[in-house]
């Protein structure tokens, strides 16, 4: 496996033969992945072969130095073929960015990034926890000093309510309270090698959609070096990187799913038009409505992406911790997750029973089932409640 030392630009990556191969492989296995609720191992292997798992790592550590706009593009293209592969790629890049942007001067993490690129390591995350009511910004489990280790080794035990591809990843990023006496919101992020981490599934992952992400709950227990704790508080990592990266990249997964459904509806309408040349089929009107929705959906993402890219370099970075930005990035997540379902539902109405069928070129059942997960990944109701509170003090109304 040869990994390019440096991608010159996003086109070089997305147009590269090895990435195109990964896209083809993702498309080829998507139905089986969904039907059997299995990990898309062929597509993830192909991404590894393309060097894509190290893409978000800066060039100085051997990565491609891809920025969030490059990653969004790649996520979108993958999710159009296989939503699970797109989501796994997105989540992995979110973990990489959380490390890259908050490692400060940690030699351990710099060395880890080099290894992550070289070995094309896949990172999962355990930010959820049984008992915190879905609030990522709270932890019950705490990091403890390993007794008799003179503070250089730490340990923890956590019940995560969901870890996507937890059984297939190489490493795990876990949120924990920073010490046994710390408040539930005083969290840190710890990276452990899954080979040295005991993880035990807490249940099955047999869901309506996003079946290939294989995301059951896990009991996690690990001992590691104190250096494996990211130096920044999780509050900062969440506000500046994890939350905006998640909402932007997830939204591109959902745009990919919606685009797939829209494309199928478009083919269906063209097929109808060909059967009756000279007449515009009635379904074409609904398709044109759908294209308006898609245009709005894309614009929503482009605006959010542009704002994040502008803010994320230099002094703008502190703006990411403001009430106004929190409101806007939450709005992106809510709007994108709703748009995805709406587009898939309307694509189903265009395609009729051929869309309702579980197979065939016009089937949109899988896309609709996958899209329904969007409102649940960090529940929209929780985000609406947060924004309801924030809007009591935020006045601009942008």
């Amino acid at each position: 496996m040869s990994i390019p030392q440096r991608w010159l630009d996003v086109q070089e990556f997305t147009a590269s033969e090895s990435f195109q191969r990964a896209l083809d492989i993702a498309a080829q296995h998507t139905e089986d992945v969904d039907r059997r609720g299995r990990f898309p191992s062929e597509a993830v292997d192909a991404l590894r072969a393309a060097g894509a798992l190290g893409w978000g790592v800066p060039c100085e550590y051997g990565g491609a130095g891809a920025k969030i706009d490059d990653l969004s593009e790649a996520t979108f293209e993958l999710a159009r073929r296989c939503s699970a592969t797109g989501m796994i790629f997105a989540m992995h890049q979110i973990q990489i960015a959380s490390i890259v942007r908050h490692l400060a001067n940690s030699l351990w993490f710099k060395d880890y990034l080099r290894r992550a690129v070289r070995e094309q390591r896949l990172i999962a995350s355990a930010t959820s926890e049984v008992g915190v009511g879905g609030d990522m910004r709270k932890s019950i489990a705490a990091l403890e000093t390993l007794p008799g280790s003179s503070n250089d080794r730490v340990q923890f035990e956590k019940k995560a309510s969901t870890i996507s591809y937890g059984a297939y990843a190489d490493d795990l990023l876990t949120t924990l309270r920073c010490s046994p006496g710390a408040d539930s919101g005083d969290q840190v992020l710890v990276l452990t090698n899954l080979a040295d981490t005991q993880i035990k599934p807490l249940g099955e992952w047999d869901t309506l959609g996003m079946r290939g992400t294989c995301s059951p709950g896990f009991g996690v227990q690990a001992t590691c070096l104190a250096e494996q704790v990211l130096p920044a508080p999780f509050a900062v990592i969440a506000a500046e990187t994890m939350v905006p990266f998640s909402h932007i990249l997830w939204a591109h997964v959902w745009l990919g799913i919606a685009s797939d459904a829209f494309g199928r509806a478009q083919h269906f309408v063209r097929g109808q038009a060909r059967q009756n040349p000279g007449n515009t089929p009635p379904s074409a009107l609904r398709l044109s409505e759908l294209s308006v929705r898609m245009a709005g959906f894309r614009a929503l993402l482009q605006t959010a992406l542009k704002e994040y890219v502008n803010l994320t370099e230099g002094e703008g970075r502190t703006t990411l911790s403001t009430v106004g930005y929190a409101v806007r990035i939450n709005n992106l997540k809510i709007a994108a997750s709703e748009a995805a379902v709406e587009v898939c539902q309307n694509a189903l109405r265009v395609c009729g029973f051929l869309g309702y069928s579980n197979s065939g070129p016009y089937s949109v059942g899988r896309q609709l089932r996958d899209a329904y997960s969007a409102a649940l990944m960090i529940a929209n109701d929780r985000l609406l409640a947060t924004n309801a509170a924030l809007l009591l003090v935020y006045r601009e109304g942008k």
Partner: protein
Amino acid sequence: MTCGYPALFLFCGAPTSPIIASPDMKSAIRISSALPVECQTEAQMKDKIRKIVADHARLGVEFERVEHSTNLYRAGMTSFSSVALMIALENEFDLEFPDGMLSRNVFESIDSIADAIERLQQVQS
């Protein structure tokens, strides 16, 4: 810190700091209603903030342990309780935090809140 300008003066000239882009009539009127409030020393202001934090920040630790420099978020203040704190501060000090100031680092400690309020009062007086 000087107080006591009639409301009319607030419309003269541009704000001295970019913190507030355009002090509108509403904030001017609000400030004029604040005239009875006496000028405060820094210590008095921090005591007042401390009391508001105790009532609204819903901290997870014993309040006696909270110092002026204690990070309130690390002490258990959530984004929900920080909103309650912001509203209470606006009421007690009779001011409005502009959107640009609604940032995590502004509300992270009694010291940083006092600093922000002082800057606002300078601009608005």
